[in-house]
């Protein structure tokens, strides 16, 4: 199993390297440059600005410098739009915000999505199943940019304590986390239902029931382990995505998280910030997938034996 983990880690490093390389060259192919302002820049000013950040060098030299800075100095480079501020400074401020919303969102989605999925599976083709799946379908179909303002107007405006948007008191986290959580809960519910249905139809469940195990025991000890596998493999990357923030949720609720930087950095051509964010996000995805792999191996003995 340790060999397997090491193998996955090596793969992860390779993935990150390729990801970063592709990003590096792709963003330089986009039209325009980071110093595009409202006004046109005189050519001598543009040349000076590019020279300040080494952008006058060939792409290969820039690429070498970039890795040199990261590997030798641990420096992700400066933001080209916010001059004087490092990419790591921006990450350090934005990530905790996205992380807290993501964790709360995760808790909400697990607490609602998984029980709903189990219920739907247990009452297959009954009204409970239909209503859960209707809600789940709606949750998947209604985009966050509709859901967020609806929550803002429907809940934020009317319930004292909740606010429509902003980040100036601890309760501001509720609506963004709810939006993020419910959208993911919808996926989770569907995946859990599917996984549970598959397990519940298996022979060993019938055996357990025949032996006289209580319905609760059948669900918790016998079916959950296997039934949750699809949900768990979804949860890993979903968690990484949730804690790195969503542009839509952040702009609708005016939250200073990472999602806004992602989109703005791209439209502003803030090369180093894009690369830093991609690297960070990629790293989280790789780690989350690794954790999911380990958990699945722990739960599923078949996987363990296959690998070894």
């Amino acid at each position, binding site marked *: 199993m340790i060999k397997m983990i090491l193998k996955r880690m090596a793969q992860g490093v390779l993935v990150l390297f390729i990801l970063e390389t592709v990003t590096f060259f792709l963003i330089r192919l986009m*039209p325009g440059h980071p110093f595009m302002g409202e006004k046109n820049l005189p050519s001598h000013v543009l040349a000076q600005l590019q020279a300040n950040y080494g952008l006058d060098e060939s792409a290969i030299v820039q690429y070498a410098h970039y890795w040199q800075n990261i590997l030798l100095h641990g420096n992700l480079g400066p933001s080209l739009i916010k001059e004087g501020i490092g990419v790591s400074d921006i990450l350090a401020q934005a990530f905790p915000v996205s992380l807290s919303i993501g964790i709360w969102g995760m808790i909400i989605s697990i607490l609602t999505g998984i029980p709903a999925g189990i219920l739907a599976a247990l009452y297959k083709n009954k009204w409970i199943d239909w209503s859960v799946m209707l809600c789940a379908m709606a949750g998947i179909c209604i985009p966050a940019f509709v859901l967020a303002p609806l929550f803002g107007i429907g809940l934020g*405006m009317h*319930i004292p304590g909740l606010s429509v948007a902003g980040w100036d008191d601890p309760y501001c986290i509720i609506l963004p986390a709810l939006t993020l959580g419910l959208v993911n809960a919808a996926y989770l519910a569907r995946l859990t239902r599917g996984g549970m249905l598959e397990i519940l139809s298996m022979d060993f469940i019938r055996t357990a029931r025949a032996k006289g195990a209580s319905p609760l025991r059948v669900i918790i000890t016998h079916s959950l382990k296997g039934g949750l596998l699809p949900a768990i493999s979804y949860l890993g990357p979903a968690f990484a995505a949730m804690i790195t923030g969503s542009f839509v949720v952040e702009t609708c609720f005016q939250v200073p*998280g990472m999602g806004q930087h992602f989109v703005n950095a791209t439209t502003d051509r803030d090369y180093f910030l894009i690369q830093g964010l991609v690297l960070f996000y990629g790293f989280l995805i790789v780690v989350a997938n690794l954790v999911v792999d380990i958990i699945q191996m722990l739960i599923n003995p078949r996987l363990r034996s296959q690998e070894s």
Partner: protein
Amino acid sequence: MMRVYALLCLSFFTLIWGCNEQSSVEKATKNGILILGNNAEPQSFDPHIATSVGDMHIINTLMEGLVRGDPANDDKYHPGVAQSWQSNQQANEWIFHLRKDALWSDGAPVTSGDFAYAFHRLLHPNFGGRYADMLYPLIHAEEYNKNNRGIILCKSSIEQLIPQEKLAQISPNTWNKLNNMSLVELTQLQETPNLIPWAESLTNGEKAHIISLMIADAQAGKPDLWDKAQVGVECPDSHTLVLKLRSPMPQLPLLLLHITWFPLPQHILENRGGILDRTGSWTRPGKAVSNGPFVMGTHRFNDYVEVIKNPSYHAANRVKLNAIRFLPIVNGFTETRMFFDGKIHITNNVPPEMSDLAHQRAGNNYRQENYYTTIFYRLNTKHPPLNDVRIRQALSMAVDRDTLVREVVRGAGTPAYGFTPPGAGYQTPKQIKFNPQRARQLLAQAGYPNGKGFPRLELMTTSREVQKTMAEAIQAMWQKHLNIHIDIRSCEWTAYKFAQNTMQYDISSSSWSGDYLDPSTFLDLWTSQSGNNNTGWNTPNFDDKLNQARHTGNIPQRMTLLQQGEDIMLDQAPVIPLYWAKRCYLKRPEVKGWHPLLLDNHVPEAITLKESSLPTNPKKEESHD
């Protein structure tokens, strides 16, 4: 299981129900904090690096220039760091007497040297100041900023062997080549001077003189030429500043309100990376030094910027606010919701779609005020058939601007029948008329009767919703009145800007805001020298009128010349003016001393917060119903 859930939910709601008796705005008002929506996240608080309007709003609270704006009139000004000033008869030499009690927030006095240092930095050719051209009115500033080393060296050499007129005959291209030559290339040139084209009048001795100056310069490693360039700023003593201009400028004080003319704390910058440092570390919270009514307090990215009252400001007793908080809210819908939830005192922008709702709910607190901005379409006059003036005029005449403003922009503008927005005592020549019949005639004369055979042109817009709807409306107007079809292409901002700058477009949705209150900030755009023209159109007639206007010190005469210039421009129609924008925003009644301003540069010491009797929290209001 169910019981645990129910308990969780119950405790959660009691928790949030029991808290937050006051809205954010109520708390802030009590503490003397003004909360403003400020569009996008700021890029920099360094006045030489910042370019966005939002950044300038913040810098205007932190720094003070020679003169200070008026709370209610854009064209009035008051003493700032300068206590008094006078100009000579031609208005091309100005003397400013600085006040002795003007201090930086670390206690050091603001001196004339701080202004000279600031101008030096912004103009420094190796600094890369985007707004350096704002200082070009200073004599010799342009050649220093563009690093025209040859001209500067010749003028400043002690012998001054070559007369100015002869220097002017050498083409800019030749100067450029000379400036960029390395020592080796220059030595070669010394042997065979005719490697580059010189002006014919130049003698061999004069050429040799120029080359020897350049060689000496290259040998010295091409040092900074600030001292030799003799840019028109002098400091006879620490509290007197003399500005020498390249042409008469009776309107100079209005320019001085712009952040590019502000002083910088030389003593701080020299300790933090020197004159070329672009990191702006001296503006960051905790290390910031400024000379205005406020100092930098906190900055959280995408969250807020808070500036706090500066006790060492010379007029600190007039400042009533304790702090101003700027929120970077790009989404106008979110911002409007936040206003109605009691989170902001003044918003930045109400989207046209919410205009009716805002008016209905906020009444007089919803404001639509004139703004010094023109919304227009650029036409690429290099692309046929737009190279034909009749086609351009026809397109312009077929736009029904009244309908556009009423139905699409929802009153957030005034129909523009000229280009420069009214203001600053300038009467815009309004010669454009909505005349579909004449437009059809012009189109027919140009060879497209009833739009037959008219090529499919593309109208480029940014991805902003308003721009897209506007483009659709105008597409329909052209279809209806001219029977021609235009395609719409909307691109994200940088791609749009890139296409516009490189003239890869047919028609481009554009806007322009004045940097200071003067028609020339709008008309200079269309000269052949302008870097922002991007239409491919220019004509010597127009350039002449603007040049004459620049060289006259007589204000009424200057305005007439500018009007004549604009007349020429409008007649040639390189652009289609659509409307003059209004700033639409929501303002809470607690905010006093906030007046409509064309440039939207509010003077923070004039603003006060008074707790109002109006309910500030709509939730409470509703619970009484």
